[in-house]
C-alpha cells in the first residue's frame, strides 16, 4: 500500500461527490437564486474532490502514525520479555488485533513484514520497504536505528527499546501539534460558513429586502463582487492556516 496515494472507495466517492455537489449548488443558489447558474457551478465539484483526496491522505498518515505508536508499545513489551524481533512480530499482531477491531493499516503492514522475513528477507529490508512507502520521518527514524543496530552489532534490544521510547515521545508531540492545527482549521471552517449563514438568514427573514439582489443586474453584479471578496478572504485564511501549522 502506498501511503502517498489514496483511492476513494465507491461509497466514499458517492459520499464526497454528493456532499460537494450539494455544497456548491446550495452556495450558488443562495447567491444567485438561479437554477442554471447553480447547475453550472457543478464544475467546482472536481477541484473539491481533489482537496478531499489530499485531506484523506493526510488523515491516513496521521492514523498510521498513531497505530505505529501502538506497534512500538507492543514491540517494546515483547523485546523486554526476551523475544527477538522476528519472533515478536506475531505476538505484536495478536496484541494489535485485540486493540483494534478489524483490519488496520499497521496490522496489515506487520503481517506483511513478518511474511517477508519468513520468506527469507532480512529484518532490515522488510522494515525499510515499509518505511519507504510511508514517507514518514518518525517511521524512518525507527527503521534507521533498527538498521544501524543490526548492521553495527551491539545490544540491539536495549538500543531499540531506548529509541522506541524516544520515538513514542515524538509521536505524542506530533499529536499535540495536530491538536493545535485542528483548532485553527475549525476556526477557519466556522469563518467560511458564517457569511453564507448570514445570507441565508437574511433571505429567510426578509425576502423582499434581498429580492433586489436577485432580480436586478446591479444586484447580481454586487453579489458576484461580494462572493469574490468572501472567496478571497476564505482562500487567504486557508493559506495562512496551511503556512503556520
Amino acid at each position, binding site marked *: 500500500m502506498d501511503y502517498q496515494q489514496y483511492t476513494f472507495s465507491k461509497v466514499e466517492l458517492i459520499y464526497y461527490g454528493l456532499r460537494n455537489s450539494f455544497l456548491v449548488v446550495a452556495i450558488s443558489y443562495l447567491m444567485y437564486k438561479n437554477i442554471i447558474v447553480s447547475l453550472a457551478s457543478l464544475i467546482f465539484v472536481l477541484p473539491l474532490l481533489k482537496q478531499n483526496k489530499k485531506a484523506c491522505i493526510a488523515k491516513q498518515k496521521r492514523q498510521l502514525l498513531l497505530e505505529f505508536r501502538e506497534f512500538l508499545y507492543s514491540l517494546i513489551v515483547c523485546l523486554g520479555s526476551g523475544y527477538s524481533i522476528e519472533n515478536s512480530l506475531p505476538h505484536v499482531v495478536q496484541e494489535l488485533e485485540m486493540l483494534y477491531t478489524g483490519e488496520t493499516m499497521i496490522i496489515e503492514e506487520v503481517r506483511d513484514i513478518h511474511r517477508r522475513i519468513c520468506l527469507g528477507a532480512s529484518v532490515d529490508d522488510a522494515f525499510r520497504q515499509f518505511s519507504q512507502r510511508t514517507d514518514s*520521518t518518525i517511521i*524512518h*527514524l525507527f527503521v*534507521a*536505528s533498527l538498521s*544501524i*543496530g543490526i548492521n*553495527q*552489532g*551491539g545490544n540491539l534490544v536495549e*538500543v531499540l527499546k*531506548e*529509541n522506541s521510547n*524516544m520515538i513514542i*515521545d*515524538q509521536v505524542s*508531540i506530533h499529536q*499535540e*501539534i495536530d491538536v*493545535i*492545527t485542528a*483548532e*485553527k482549521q475549525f*476556526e*477557519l471552517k466556522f*469563518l467560511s460558513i*458564517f*457569511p453564507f449563514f*448570514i*445570507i441565508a438568514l*437574511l433571505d429567510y427573514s426578509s425576502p423582499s*429586502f*434581498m*429580492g*433586489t*439582489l436577485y432580480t*436586478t443586474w*446591479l*444586484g447580481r453584479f*454586487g*453579489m458576484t*463582487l*461580494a*462572493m469574490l*471578496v*468572501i472567496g*478571497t*478572504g*476564505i482562500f*487567504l*485564511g486557508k493559506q*495562512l*492556516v496551511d503556512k*503556520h*501549522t
Partner: protein
Amino acid sequence: MKYKVGAVIYQRIRPPRRYEQKISDSLLRLYGTKSYKEKIYSFWSKKYSLHIYTSLIVILLTVGESLSSQGIFFLGGNVCCHYYLDEKLKEEIETHRRALMNGFFEFSSLFTLMINAGLNYKNALEYSIGDHAFSPYLNEAIRQIKTGKSEILAFEEIPLQCRETVITRYFACIVQGQRHGNRSVRNDLKRITEENWNEKLKLHRKNGEVLKTKLLLPMMLIFIGILGILLMPVMIQFQQLM
C-alpha cells in the same frame, strides 16, 4: 545591472551606522558567515535604487501639483519603500528560521538515534543529512571533514553559520564531548533532543497565537463582503427611488 545606480550611491553615502549594523546582522542570520558580505552589498544597492526609482516616479506623477503635495507624496513613497524592503527581509528571516528549525529537529532526532545505536559522529552525521533547510550546513561540515579538517572544528562551524541558540546548544554538547570526553554524551544529546521537541511544540503554540491575529485580515475581508451584501439592496432601492 538593475541596481547599479544604488550601488554607486551606496559607495558614496553610507546609511546610519547602527541601522547598517542591524541589517548586516539580519543578513548574517539569513545567509551565514560565508556569503552574507555580498548580500549586504546587493541589499543596499537594491534599497538605494528603489528609493531613487520611487522618487523619480513620484516626481513624474505629481508634475504640476503644489510643492507641499509633491513633498507629501515624495515622503510617503520613500517611507513605504523603506519599510517594504525591511519587512520583506524580516519575513525572509522568519521563513528561513522556521525551515531551518524544522530541518534541525529532524536532524537532531536522527543523529541522536544514530549515536544511540552505536555509530561514531562522522558516520552518524553522514547518515542523518536528509533533505531539508539544515542539510546544506551538514553537507558543508562533511565536506570539510573529508578534506582533512578536524571533526571538532567542522562541528563548531555549524552553529556559527546558523546563529540559533538551540542549534548552538546541541553542537556545543557534541564539541565539548569530543574535546574533553564525556561519558554521558548520549544521555545529554537525548535530553537536548527532547528539549528540542518541546521547543518545536512551543513554536507551534506561538504560531497558533500569531495566526489568531493574522486571521483578522481574512475575517475583515469576509465582513466587507457581508457588509456589501447588506448595503447593496438599500443602495439599489435608493437608486430606483431617485
